C-alpha cells in the first residue's frame, strides 16, 4: 500500500534525535534546571527536540494544572503510541516533563521560562544585548559575515583533508588543532605533524551541520575538563542560535567564561569580532542556524542561493563522476574516494574505481558514507533520476566493501573429542539454546562456541560428567 509506505517514511525521521540531546540527557537535573532558567535556552532546546515532543510541550505549556496521563494519551492514535511513549521518555530524560504515572505537568522552571520566551518580556536578557548603533563604522553585511565563516570553516576542513596527503595548507589556530586532536579526528605520531584518522575521514563526509555539532560536542566535553561552567557554555551557545544574522551584539552582561568562549568560537567561525578586545560581536550564519535542522548552511558552498547550494555532482552508470566545483576543499574531499581524471576551472572529472574506493575503505570510510555523500551533493539534474544514483554503482560500492569483510575473526573455544554422539548432541543443543554456537561439524563431533558462552558450557559439561560419575 503506497499510503502506508509514505506514512512510515514521514514518521521515521522523528526517531533520529539531535546529537546534542543525548549529551543534555546525561546531565544532572540540577544543571538542566539552571539551564532552563534562561528563556533562550528553553527556546533552543525546544527547537532541537522532535516534532512530537514539541507538540506535547506546547499542549502543556498553557495549562495551569496538571493533566491526567490518560487524558493526554487518548489524544494519540493507536499506531502512534510507540512514538508517543518514546517522546515522553525523551522529555522525562531532559527533565522537561517529569516522569509520572498519574499526571503530566511541565517542569515549573521550564514552563515559566518558555512562556516568557514565547510572549516576550521579563528582564533575563537571554536573547543577547544588541549593541548601540555605531555611527563611525558601518555594520557588517550578511555577505561579509558569510565569507568570514566560510573561510574559517573551510580552513579547518582543508587542513584535515590535506594532512593525509602531506601538503601543508594554512594552519588553523592552536585551539582548533587541540580540539581536533582531542576529538580523535586527527592524531599525532611521535611528534610528527598531525595526521587525519579514520574518524576524521568519516567526519569529512558529514553535512556541515553535523560536523559543526560534532565539534561543539567535543568542545562541551572539553569545557567540563577545563572547569568551565557547563550551564554558561550551553546557554551562550543557545543564545547565539537565537540571534539575528547581520546584527551586532554587545559583550556587556557576558560572564568571564562566556568571554573566553567568544575567543574560541571566533576561531571556529561562529562569531565575528573586529578585534579580540572589541566590545561588540556579530554571530555568523554558522551560529544562527545551530538549532535549525535543515541543511541550508550556505557557508558550505559559498554564496547563498547559488547553483552550488543545490549540489554539484553528476554520477553516471559508467562510474564517471563530474563535479561542477571550483572549491579546492570539495575537490580534496572527492579525491578521498575517486580517481581524478581531468581538472578544469569549474569542473572535475573522475572515476570511481575499485582501487580508489578500496583506499577510502581502508581509511575507515564506509560504503554507506560514500553513497550518502554522493546523494546529498547530487546535481539538480541528477534529482530527476529515480533512484537518484545509478543502482549498479551503488551496488558495486557496497560489493567492494563486502570484499574486505570476507574473513571475520572471533575469539572462542573449540569443543571436541566428545565421548559419544549422544554426548555431543546434548551439549550442542544446550549451546544452541544459549545461542553461542559459531560453527559446528557433526561428522567430526566438534563445535566452536563464542567466548562469553564458555563458562556456561564448561559448567554444563562438568555437571554432566560429575552426574554421570
Amino acid at each position, binding site marked *: 500500500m503506497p499510503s502506508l509506505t509514505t*506514512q512510515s517514511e*514521514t*514518521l521515521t*525521521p*522523528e526517531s533520529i534525535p539531535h546529537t546534542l540531546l543525548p549529551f543534555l540527557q546525561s546531565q544532572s537535573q540540577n544543571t538542566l534546571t539552571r539551564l532552563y532558567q534562561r*528563556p*533562550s535556552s528553553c*527556546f533552543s532546546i*525546544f*527547537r532541537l527536540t*522532535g*516534532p*512530537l515532543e*514539541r*507538540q506535547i510541550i*506546547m*499542549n502543556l*505549556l*498553557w*495549562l495551569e494544572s496538571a493533566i491526567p496521563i490518560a487524558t493526554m494519551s*487518548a*489524544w*494519540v*492514535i493507536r*499506531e*502512534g503510541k510507540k*512514538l*508517543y511513549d518514546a517522546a515522553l521518555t525523551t522529555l522525562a530524560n531532559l527533565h522537561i516533563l517529569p516522569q509520572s504515572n498519574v499526571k503530566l505537568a511541565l517542569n515549573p522552571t521550564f514552563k515559566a521560562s518558555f512562556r*516568557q*520566551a*514565547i*510572549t*516576550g*518580556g*521579563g*528582564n*533575563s*536578557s*537571554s*536573547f*543577547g*544585548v*544588541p549593541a548601540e548603533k555605531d555611527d563611525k563604522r558601518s555594520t557588517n553585511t550578511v555577505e561579509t559575515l558569510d565569507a568570514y565563516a566560510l573561510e574559517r570553516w573551510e580552513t579547518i576542513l582543508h587542513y584535515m583533508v590535506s594532512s593525509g596527503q602531506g601538503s601543508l595548507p594554512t594552519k588553523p589556530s592552536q585551539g582548533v588543532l587541540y580540539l581536533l586532536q582531542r576529538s580523535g579526528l586527527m592524531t599525532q605520531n611521535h611528534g610528527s605533524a598531525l595526521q587525519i584518522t579514520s574518524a576524521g575521514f568519516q567526519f569529512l563526509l558529514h553535512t556541515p551541520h553535523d560536523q559543526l555539532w560534532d565539534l561543539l560536542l567535543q568542545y562541551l566535553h572539553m569545557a567540563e575538563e577545563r572547569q568551565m561552567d557547563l550551564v554558561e557554555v550551553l546557554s551562550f551557545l543557545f543564545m547565539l542560535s*537565537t*540571534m*539575528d544574522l547581520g*546584527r551586532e551584539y554587545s559583550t556587556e*552582561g557576558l560572564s568571564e567564561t562566556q568571554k573566553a568562549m567568544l575567543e574560541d568560537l571566533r576561531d571556529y567561525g561562529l562569531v565575528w569580532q573586529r578585534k579580540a578586545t572589541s566590545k561588540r560581536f556579530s554571530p555568523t550564519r554558522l551560529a544562527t*542556524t545551530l*538549532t*535549525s*535542522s*535543515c*541543511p*541550508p548552511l550556505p557557508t558550505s558552498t559559498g554564496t547563498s542561493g547559488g547553483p552550488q547550494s*543545490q549540489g554539484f555532482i553528476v554520477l553516471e552508470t559508467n562510474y564517471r563522476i563530474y563535479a561542477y566545483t571550483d572549491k579546492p576543499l570539495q575537490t580534496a574531499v572527492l579525491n578521498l574516494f575517486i580517481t581524478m581524471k581531468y581538472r578544469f576551472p569549474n569542473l572535475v572529472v573522475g572515476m570511481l574505481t575499485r582501487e580508489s574506493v578500496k583506499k577510502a575503505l581502508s581509511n575507515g570510510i564506509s560504503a554507506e558514507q560514500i553513497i550518502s555523500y554522493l546523494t546529498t551533493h547530487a546535481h*539538480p*539534474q541528477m*534529482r530527476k533520476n529515480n533512484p537518484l544514483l545509478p543502482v549498479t554503482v551503488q551496488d558495486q560500492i557496497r560489493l567492494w566493501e563486502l570484499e574486505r569483510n570476507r574473513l571475520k575473526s572471533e575469539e572462542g573455544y573449540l569443543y571436541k573429542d566428545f565421548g559419544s554422539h549422544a554426548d555431543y548432541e546434548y551439549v550442542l543443543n544446550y549451546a544452541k539454546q544459549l545461542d553461542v554456537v559459531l560453527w559446528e561439524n557433526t561428522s567430526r563431533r566438534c563445535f566452536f562456541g563464542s567466548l562469553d558462552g564458555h563458562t556456561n558450557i564448561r559448567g554444563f559439561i562438568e555437571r554432566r560428567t560429575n552426574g554421570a560419575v
Partner: protein
Amino acid sequence: MEKASHLSVILDLSPTQWHLSAQSSNQYPLSIHSFLSQLLAFLNAHIASKHENTLAVFGAFPGKSVMLYSSTDPVADDVPPADANSYSSFKVVDFTIVRSIMNEFDALGNLDEEPPCALVGALTKALCCKSISAHFHSPNAVEDPAVLPDPRILILSVSPDLSTSYIPIMNSIFSAQKLKVTIDVCKVYGPDAVFLQQAAHLTGGSYIFLERRDALLQYLTMSFLSPPALRQVLAVPKQDKIDFRAACFCHKNIVDVGFVCSVCLSSNHILFYVVKLWFTYMCTVFCQPVPVCSTCR
C-alpha cells in the same frame, strides 16, 4: 528530514461580529483584544517550532482583504529595535500584525451599513501567495519539491456564511485541493459555517467549533499547531457532521434539495442551474420549477 511548514492564517475581522462576540451576555465573551493576544502567542509558537517555518497572515475586513504580515517580506523600518528579552522575529510579527490591523480599522471609519467580510478575497490571496502557489508555478523546476515547505491555511471565522460567495469559495477550495493545501477552520463565534465545513472536509483539514471560547489558545495549539505529517500520529479532532448543501443560483439561499438543469448541460455551454425550492421536502412537491432556466434560457 523533517519538512518545514508554511502557515497562512486568515482572520475574519468584522467589527460587528467582534462587537457581538465581546458582549457579556455570551457565556464566554471574547473580545478582539484577548483574541489577538492569544492568536499572537499561537503564531509565535508556530515560528518557534522550526527555524524554517514561514508564516503569512491575511485579514478579511468588511469589503476588503489585506495581507497583514508575510515572513518572506523584508522587515519594515519602523519596527522597534530588538531588545535582549525577546526573540527578534516574535517582536516583528507581533508588531506588524497589530499595527496593520489598527491601521485598517482606522481606515474603515464609521460605516452606516457594514459590507460583508471579504473572506474570499483573503482566501484567494492566501492561495496566490508565493509559498503556496510555488507548487503550481514550478512543477518541474530544478529545485526539489521536498525543499518547499508543506503549506496549510487556517481560517479563524466569526461571520456567518455568505451565500453569495458560494461559487468563489468553492472554486478556492478546489484549487486548494489541487495544490494539496490543507485548510483548517476554527469557528470562533457565530453559527456553523456550511461552506467552511466543506472546505475543511475536502482538503483533509479539521473544522472546529469553539465551545469554550476562553480556552482559544489551548484549542489552537492542540488542534492546529501540528503540521499535517504529525497528524498521522495525533488524533486531531475532525468535524462530526458535514453539511453538503449548496446555494441556489436564483435566490442565493442554501438548499438541501434542488433542481439541476440538464438542458444547458447538453447544449453548447456547460451550465448548471440549481433552483431553490423550499427547505422541506413537503413543499418540493408543490413548488413549481421555473418554466425557463434563467442561466441558459
